[in-house]
């Protein structure tokens, strides 16, 4: 093959523009790939296993790409389905695919590439050798594995290529590097890995790297042996050297180095050139293979149930002594629940006054005219979180502070119910590198016929 053509309709579930998808399909791509998640959305989705986007939004995006790819007999690759790629999300994704197939009279073969990791397997690996941290503060421990709610490994191109090898029209993958979703087909055809991955890194966000950037728009790529060219299908959008180069920076800690499973993409020699008003040519990105192939594993642990209450404060007398009153309310609440069974945390966030930046805030003494108070309780059970949140709320609501004139209540509630149970909460604690001899060993594949 002389070139590979790729279409990115944007992120699955965001609400991809069907008009742009149709225009992109007219460019005759060899494949379509969609990223369906990320861990940016927080630990909850990895732990709870629910999709980030509502099923109705995911199905709406699936229908036009499935029709288009099946009609052209080209593969559709979906990764990070459908949030963080754990088994529950992958099973939900599969049932949504099945519903779309049934509702539209479509028949196709799907290769499901799983990424959730077995705890016994990881403990066995840990006995063989230490597992080093990537972002986490220390080496992996048996306790880290035991207390994890969910652990996934982030696949590179190899398991995706194996999925394509089954002849499936749809490859539905769990946790995956977003760039690998776009690089798998080209690398399988022998195209340059550094270029294919760099192309993928820009493509995964659809037209976010264009002018104007749009979460809902498509982006198209022509990959040749020694360069690739990007063009948004929509004529009123364009790529510029600056928009593409700056997207290369996005969400990453170093612009020159993009580490991934099995190596690092060196972008220090990358060149960008404006081909015409709407197209940009890129070349020079180089893949440097690691001596040892390593996979990133990510895990979260359950850390309690959360209940919240939001109340506004406009009284300047109360605002002038808010820290004292919140401390008093906390002490009162802690005394009340002193003998309760179970642990809890109590967090007061003062929106309008350092709720957003915390320790990083340079302007800590600012006094606003109104405050949004968020009371947050994290406890061992939802019942306990509910009870503590309700008690703390009542204590603040009727706090009788020095100089008080407004004795009817201290909190303006935006709605009833005043307290809202938020369910389980999770925290990231595993972000480590697992050395692998076989890049596919952690990612079992099953092939199913859907209709």
């Amino acid at each position, binding site marked *: 093959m002389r070139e590979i053509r790729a279409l990115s309709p944007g992120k699955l579930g965001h609400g991809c523009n069907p008009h742009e998808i149709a225009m992109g399909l007219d460019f005759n791509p060899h494949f379509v790939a969609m990223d369906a998640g990320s861990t940016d959305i*927080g630990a*909850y989705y990895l732990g709870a296993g629910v999709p980030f986007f509502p099923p109705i939004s995911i199905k709406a995006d699936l229908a036009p790409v499935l029709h288009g790819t099946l009609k052209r007999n080209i593969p559709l690759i979906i990764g990070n389905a459908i949030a963080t790629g754990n088994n529950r999300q992958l099973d939900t994704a599969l049932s949504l695919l099945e519903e779309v197939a049934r509702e539209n009279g479509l028949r196709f073969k799907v290769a499901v590439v799983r990424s959730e990791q077995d705890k016994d397997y990881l403990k066995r690996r840990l006995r063989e050798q230490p597992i080093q941290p990537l*972002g986490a503060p220390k080496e992996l421990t048996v306790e880290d594995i035991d207390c994890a709610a969910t652990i996934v490994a982030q696949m590179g191109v190899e398991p995706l290529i194996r999925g394509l090898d089954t002849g499936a029209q749809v490859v539905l993958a769990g946790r995956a590097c977003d760039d690998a979703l776009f690089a798998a087909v080209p690398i399988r055809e022998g195209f340059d890995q550094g270029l294919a991955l760099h192309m993928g890194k820009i493509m995964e966000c659809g037209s976010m790297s264009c002018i104007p950037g749009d979460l809902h728009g498509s982006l198209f790529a022509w990959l040749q042996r020694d360069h690739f060219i990007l063009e948004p299908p929509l004529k009123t959008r364009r790529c510029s050297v600056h928009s593409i*180069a700056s997207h290369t920076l996005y969400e990453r800690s*170093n612009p020159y180095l993009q580490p991934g499973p099995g190596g690092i993409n060196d972008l220090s020699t990358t060149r960008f050139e404006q081909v015409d008003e709407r197209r940009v040519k890129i070349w020079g990105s180089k893949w440097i293979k690691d001596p040892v192939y390593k996979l990133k594993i990510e895990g979260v642990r359950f850390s309690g149930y959360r209940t919240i209450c939001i109340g506004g404060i406009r009284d300047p007398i109360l605002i002038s002594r808010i820290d004292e009153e919140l401390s008093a309310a906390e002490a009162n609440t802690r005394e009340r629940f002193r003998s309760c069974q179970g642990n809890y945390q109590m967090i007061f966030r003062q929106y309008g006054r350092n709720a957003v930046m915390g320790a*990083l805030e340079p302007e800590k003494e600012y006094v606003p005219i109104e405050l949004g108070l968020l009371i947050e309780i994290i406890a061992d059970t939802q019942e306990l979180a509910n009870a503590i949140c309700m008690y703390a709320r009542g204590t603040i609501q009727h706090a009788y502070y020095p100089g008080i004139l407004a004795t009817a209540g201290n909190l303006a509630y935006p709605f009833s119910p005043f307290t809202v149970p938020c369910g389980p909460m999770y925290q990231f604690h595993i972000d480590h590198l697992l050395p692998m001899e076989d890049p596919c060993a952690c990612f079992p594949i099953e092939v199913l016929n859907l209709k």
Partner: protein
Amino acid sequence: MGNVSIRDICTVIRSKQAGPFRLTFDLLFKTKQLYEIVKMSGAISKRQIADLYRMPEEKITDFVFYDPGLALKISMVRPKVAGDPGDGDVYGCQQHAPLLGLKLSLPDVTGDMMK
């Protein structure tokens, strides 16, 4: 006190998480000329960013000028992991605000350059 507001020489000033354990900041300059002046002048330093964010300098993991993007990339260890109890910004996309107040000493920059 500097003579040039960072807002007048950048097209983008943003923050975002780079994985749950890191925060990353991008400053994209308006023109190659402005980018080169800032890069050569040393008017923005790692030390200054560390002070601005009340961070020990060793927590700043990257401080890199990126020529193809006319950009300065700064990354740091997050004081709280994304979404941990007490963290206030899961995406980390509102941590850039203090950068908007930066004034740089750039005697070579004229009003015309910033248009």
